[in-house]
């Protein structure tokens, strides 16, 4: 209880939440994704395993926790949970979501499969990141569901556009553009959601 009260006090003293947060979050996430492309070669599910999941999780998690350190306590936990979660999905049948593309070319299949796959991954990653958020925001259990929605929209869009571009150009590069679209959507939507959650937490803490 004492620990929890201490964290709440810390929250109040941390930086004011606002529009800047969204920009920092968005640019941090996208910058990390582009940086990750130097280390990870995008491919189909079997091409990327645990190792690449750990690398991807580390790069994205590090950038996001760097942005969050001004807003939540113990933000390094965010990075760790991202590393572990992405590493585990990399070794599972889900694959290193964010850097993998589906094998099929049918556009409708890609949209539906992307949305479902994104939702499943979002829940998983959300639960992991909940460990980092739970003492910092109220009703932190909302985060896995929000993340599921964000990744569902992002991956559905990304895999669909990626498929269309790959068909049009005849190059796998189209998939890379598709994944960039997915990350743009995820970074934007999660930025909006986190902004809201952290604002609510601050208001509650202020009351």
């Amino acid at each position: 209880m004492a620990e929890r009260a201490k964290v709440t006090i810390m929250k109040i003293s941390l930086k004011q939440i606002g529009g800047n947060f969204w920009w920092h979050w968005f640019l941090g996430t996208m910058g990390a994704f582009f940086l990750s492309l130097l280390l990870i070669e995008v491919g189909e599910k079997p091409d990327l395993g645990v190792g690449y999941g750990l690398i991807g999780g580390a790069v994205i998690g590090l950038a996001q926790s760097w942005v969050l350190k001004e807003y939540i306590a113990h933000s390094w936990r965010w990075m760790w949970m991202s590393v572990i979660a992405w590493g585990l999905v990399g070794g599972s049948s889900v694959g290193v979501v964010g850097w993998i593309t589906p094998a099929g070319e049918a556009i409708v299949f890609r949209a539906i499969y992307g949305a479902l796959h994104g939702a499943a991954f979002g829940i998983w990653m959300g639960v992991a990141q909940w460990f980092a958020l739970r003492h910092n925001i109220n009703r932190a259990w909302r985060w896995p569901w929000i993340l599921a929605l964000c990744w569902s929209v992002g991956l559905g869009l990304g895999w669909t556009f990626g498929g269309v571009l790959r068909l049009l150009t005849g190059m796998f590069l189209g998939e890379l553009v598709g994944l960039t679209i997915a990350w743009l959507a995820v970074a934007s939507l999660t930025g909006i959601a986190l902004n809201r959650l952290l604002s609510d937490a601050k208001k509650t803490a202020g009351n």
Partner: protein
Amino acid sequence: MKPKGKKWWDYLWLWGGLGISLVWLWMQAVTIFPDPIGAMPRPIPAASEIRGVWITNVASGVLFSPWGINRALRQLSALNFNTVYPVVWNRGHTFYPSKVAQKVTGREQEPMLKFMRWGGDVLEEIIKVGHRRNLRVIPWFEYGFMAPKNSPLARRHPEWISQPLNREKKPAGNKLEPELNFSQVKIPDFIRDRLIRQQVWLNPFHPEVQQFILDLILEVVRRYDVDGIQIDDHFGLPVELGYDSFTVELYRREHGGKNPPYDPRDEEWMFWRSQKINAFMQKIFTSVKAINPECLISLSPNSYEFSYNKYLQDWLTWVNRGWVEELLLQVYRDDAKSFEAELAQTAVQIAAQKIPVGVGILTGTLTHPVRVEQVQEQVQLVRDRQFNGVSFFYWETLWSYLTPDAPGQRRQVFKQLFSPPKSGT
């Protein structure tokens, strides 16, 4: 304000995380950055099968990015390739620091390469890393006598440029050659003329041109520990050309004052020009061998009929006279039938009885992606006909985002193609 009095586990989270991340990044880095340099044996020669790839500067970043060479050669070696043909002469520039080029063109090496490599020597790096990884390195003089109209070389030496009879009429392009310059993209002519480089051809009969090309080749052979040198289909002259004043005068001197025929396809006129190129080829062979008898002379032409009729390149004579020691026939076809027809041509069969003959296979260009199944099928056709191997055009389209398939999937296919047969099977 930052929270005070961090607990020990906060530090564990932080520094433990950073430590493990650094270990992972290091493990990645060893695959990106150079291996420690150590004394390694000389490369194994392409004993049984040529497994090569052309490394070019056009539509490819491999020569320019700091980790490009290491990454490329590591992957090629891991997949049992044994030869690389890195470009050293393209668009009027060298891809190594060249005193010869400096003197003639005013530029030591290609400006973008010089900038990206901080004036370093990419050819030296390719040879060092390639040999360490048991790859033969055979520098490729890709452009031969061709150069962009606006290149420093062409601007400094207009007297070296060969001309058609009607100067308004440009020589027809090589339709068999894979295009990396967007020339298959339909765009209006007035835009194309401004965007796309117009090519000219150096006069292969001009002694100063011959000396320049020979000096470039010999500079590479003298200065670098190369396994050979390669020239290709650009080592010739479009049949429409040869009407410049120097060549006309030379022809007249040797024909009792008679002018060359108006018809560029006149049999004797074609023969006369091709003989001059043959003589220069012989000179290259003897000059290279005088410096390094072990240096292989490799040639990568189009089919013989096309080479001779369009580019006056009489490569079968070169093979018969022993001036070429390895031949890689460019067979950039999509359909299996025409691919097979090229392999069945008489000149190729004759060459195959005298020297190792491999087949150049197209793995794709920017405007023409090629599926890996087609590559697989063509390699099999080459093997079925007992040729001495294959070389792929070009590195960036072996496995990359510019291919139709995922890079990892393509690597798997090449791995299977070049894996040693399992014992007992």
